[in-house]
């Protein structure tokens, strides 16, 4: 029954998407109101079918309906219901089905948000979204069909999803966040395609486009960092980022999307870089498809990837279509992409935005080349190589530091042109703050050049952000008097985008410092402790107090009780564990982490003796790692503020008045 229902709704979705694609193109071309209405109807049909199909699958997973192929593959009576639910995205077929659901939700949101608005652009936009939707519905209907009916084999063991996915609560939120980021890029891409097809790239369309990009950008930011956090809490190697192909796959569209968000502002304000903005927009979507290809084709070797599957070639063809259509469209519309404005000076915010964009593209290329290079090497020379941390760090550290530096310089300079004296005045205070912060870091013992450089640029950029947020408040307060609070509220109301952007920048500055410190000053030691024995690592005294074992529904847990004492801070018991899952040959470790403001103590069990006589531990001390997660939270918060739809009348009036306070960063 579930099989039939699921397959039925996917086929309805596929039919709606294909029909909507054709009707939408026609409606876009003729601007027919009736055609648009039909397209919207078909888009609703597609969206709801995807949502319903996912509901059917979730139901089947919860019922442990082993007549459904996907449930037969990942379902199990041994796992609790929330794991059964999460299994939806734990293997290839389910993850593509889930992709469909997210696209469906985005389509619904888009339809609601554009009701009675932007009608001239909607036909082409919906047609493009539905083209992508048709592709995924086709995958779910055929090559990656999760709903196929199977005859249950008596006695066949059902072991449940990959144990690594059962190991931590973060795994429940990390993939949806990432998917919301990935899939959401479809909407701005489609809006861009529509603008090119229509031949209109006005600010009236670019503004909502930018907001539709901010939404998945925020999700992607959260998704990437949650993924790192999950790796840190679960994998037990003490770090959160390894430049693994699949991590890179999520980072690539983030980089190009960030480049786009900045280029789009330059286009909006100065009428330049239009073609460039479009290239970044198209690349971002293509990179999300590339990332999906990477995880699902079996071509890349990664800890995260799903197993080899026949859908790889199909994805590659889709990626090819996306790239070729993008290139041809941009080529055909190249005359529309001529700049309307021009650059006046290299000492200006405009110029800094251009350099910033070049850096983001350089960063994207660095990561892309490093990720794809092993394929190239194997194809040409027949050797297996892996591109490791040294390559990525060598290039990404200087680029990252330069980006943080520009994040300060850009907003500090005015649009258009600045005189040398103005520039000096604008940069003096933030530079001093940067120097101050660097001295503080040096005082704590930092000597590494790049760490100090990161402190300087981050302090500099953060100072600019704070000043940029305070300046409008001061201006309003001086002009109108009243309470400081009301001035702040007024400044915020008028310059929401600016505040959002600057809060994101503060998050980035914090992130840069936290990454530099946690990456550079991590220490690790391996120790073996007999029962009752103690060892001193850093400020901590660790004592092995014995082994403990218990059974949970889906796993057997063996834990080492390690007493941790820090002078002046009391004591605690940490329990690094080994979890043994049904049908899994080797146990999977779960590290124990004790987080303090300044540093994490991270214990990873290498071996826990069966008799509890000894334990082998890897002990990491990870300074400032906690702040990486906090920084991501700040970035997402800023993104939310920037994205929140303005009350339109307010913005219109304020802009018309030309108040400098509304000049967003």
């Amino acid at each position, binding site marked *: 029954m579930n099989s039939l229902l699921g397959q039925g709704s996917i086929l309805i979705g596929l039919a709606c998407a294909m029909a909507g694609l054709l009707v939408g193109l026609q409606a876009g071309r003729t601007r027919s109101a009736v055609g648009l209405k039909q397209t919207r109807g078909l888009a609703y049909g597609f969206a709801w079918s995807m949502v319903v199909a996912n509901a059917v699958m979730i139901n089947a997973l919860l019922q442990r309906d082993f007549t459904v192929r996907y449930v037969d593959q990942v379902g199990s009576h041994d796992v609790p219901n929330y794991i059964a639910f999460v299994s939806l995205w734990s293997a290839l077929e389910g993850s593509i089905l889930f992709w469909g659901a997210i696209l469906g939700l985005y389509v619904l949101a888009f339809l609601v948000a554009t009701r009675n608005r932007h009608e001239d652009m909607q036909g082409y936009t919906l047609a493009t979204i539905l083209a992508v939707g048709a592709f995924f519905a086709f995958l779910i209907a055929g090559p990656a069909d999760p709903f196929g009916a199977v005859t249950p084999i008596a006695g066949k063991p059902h072991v449940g999803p990959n144990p690594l996915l059962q190991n931590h609560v973060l795994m429940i939120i990390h993939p949806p966040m990432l998917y919301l980021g990935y899939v959401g890029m479809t909407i701005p891409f489609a809006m861009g395609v529509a603008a090119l097809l229509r031949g209109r790239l006005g600010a009236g369309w670019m503004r909502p486009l930018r907001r539709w990009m901010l939404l998945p950008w925020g999700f992607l930011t959260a998704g990437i960092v949650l993924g790192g956090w999950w790796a840190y809490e679960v994998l037990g190697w003490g770090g959160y980022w390894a430049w693994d192909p699949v991590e890179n796959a999520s980072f690539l569209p983030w980089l190009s999307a960030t480049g786009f968000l900045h280029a789009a502002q330059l286009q909006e304000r100065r009428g330049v870089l239009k073609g460039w903005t479009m290239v970044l927009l198209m690349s971002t979507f293509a990179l999300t498809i590339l990332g999906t290809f990477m995880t699902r084709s079996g071509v890349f070797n990664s800890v995260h990837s799903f197993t*080899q599957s026949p859908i790889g070639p199909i994805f590659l063809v889709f990626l090819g279509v996306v790239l070729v259509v993008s290139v041809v469209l941009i080529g055909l519309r190249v005359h529309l992409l001529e700049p309307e404005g021009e650059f006046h000076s290299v000492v200006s915010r405009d110029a800094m935005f251009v350099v910033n964009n070049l850096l983001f593209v350089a960063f994207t290329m660095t990561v892309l080349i490093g990720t794809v290079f092993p394929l190239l090497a194997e194809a040409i020379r027949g050797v297996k190589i892996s591109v490791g941390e040294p390559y990525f760090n060598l290039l990404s550290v200087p680029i990252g530091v330069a980006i943080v530096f520009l994040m300060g310089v850009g907003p500090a300079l005015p649009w258009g042109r600045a005189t040398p004296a103005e520039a000096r005045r604008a940069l003096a205070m933030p530079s001093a703050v940067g120097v101050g912060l660097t001295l503080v870091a040096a005082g704590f013992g930092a000597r590494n050049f790049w760490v100090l450089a990161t402190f300087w640029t981050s302090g500099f950029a953060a100072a600019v952000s704070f000043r940029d947020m305070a300046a409008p408040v001061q201006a309003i307060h001086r002009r109108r008097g009243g309470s400081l609070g009301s001035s702040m509220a007024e400044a915020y109301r008028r310059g929401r985008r600016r505040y959002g952007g600057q809060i994101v920048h503060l998050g980035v500055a914090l992130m840069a410092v936290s990454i530099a410190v946690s990456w550079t000053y991590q220490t690790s030691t391996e120790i073996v402790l007999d029962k009752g024995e103690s060892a001193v690592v850093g400020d901590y005294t660790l004592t092995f107090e014995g082994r403990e074992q218990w059974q949970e529904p889906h796993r057997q847990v063996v834990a080492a009780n390690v007493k941790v004492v820090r002078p002046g801070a009391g004591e605690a018991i940490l329990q690094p564990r080994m979890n043994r899952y049904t049908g899994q*040959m080797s146990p999977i470790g779960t590290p124990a982490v004790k987080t303090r403001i300044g540093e994490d103590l991270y214990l990873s069990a290498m071996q826990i003796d069966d008799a509890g006589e000894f334990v082998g531990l890897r002990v990491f001390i990870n300074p400032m790692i906690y702040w990486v997660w906090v920084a991501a939270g700040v970035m997402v918060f800023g993104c939310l503020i920037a994205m929140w739809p303005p009350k339109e009348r307010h913005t219109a009036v304020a802009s018309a008045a030309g108040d400098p306070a509304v000049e967003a960063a």
Partner: protein
Amino acid sequence: MSAAGPGLSKQQLLVIGGGLLLVLPMLVVLGMGFGFDPHKIDSPLVGLPAPVFELPALSDQQPVKLASLQGKPAVINFWATWCASCPMEHPGLVQASRYYGEQVQFVGIAYEDKRPALKAWLNRNGGDVYPTLVDVGGKTAIAYGVYGVPETYILDEAGTVTYKHVGPIPPQVLKAELDRLL
């Protein structure tokens, strides 16, 4: 896209041509990736003497040594009852062991498993036409560098590992490798 008209301007051709020149090689590189399996890493054991073992047989609990299997080519298949693809692989092995008869010694090594489960599994999946040994504690699997079951090692008559296969071994691969040794 009617604005472009019949002929494309030089600028349009330049952008489209340049763009495709950038994009197509990348697609080719990605496409070439399908020919390779990133997980395939040649076993360092190939060309070296197979690690020795002495394991109890499933049928009678009597210890069986590697040495007792030598003198003819051998197929060592690591498997488990909880492994998803083993039921698919097993009939091929049974058939091959019947086909080669006395020419080749087949042996299964059960990994991380329990005796009753093993017996029930064999009854269900084609019987035990060749000996199954029980790898208590998984030491033999570790010595052979087993990464996941099923994995199959082929030994020549001197006991040197000539081939390692990860995952269910296709009958034609098994036949080709054994025919090479006979």
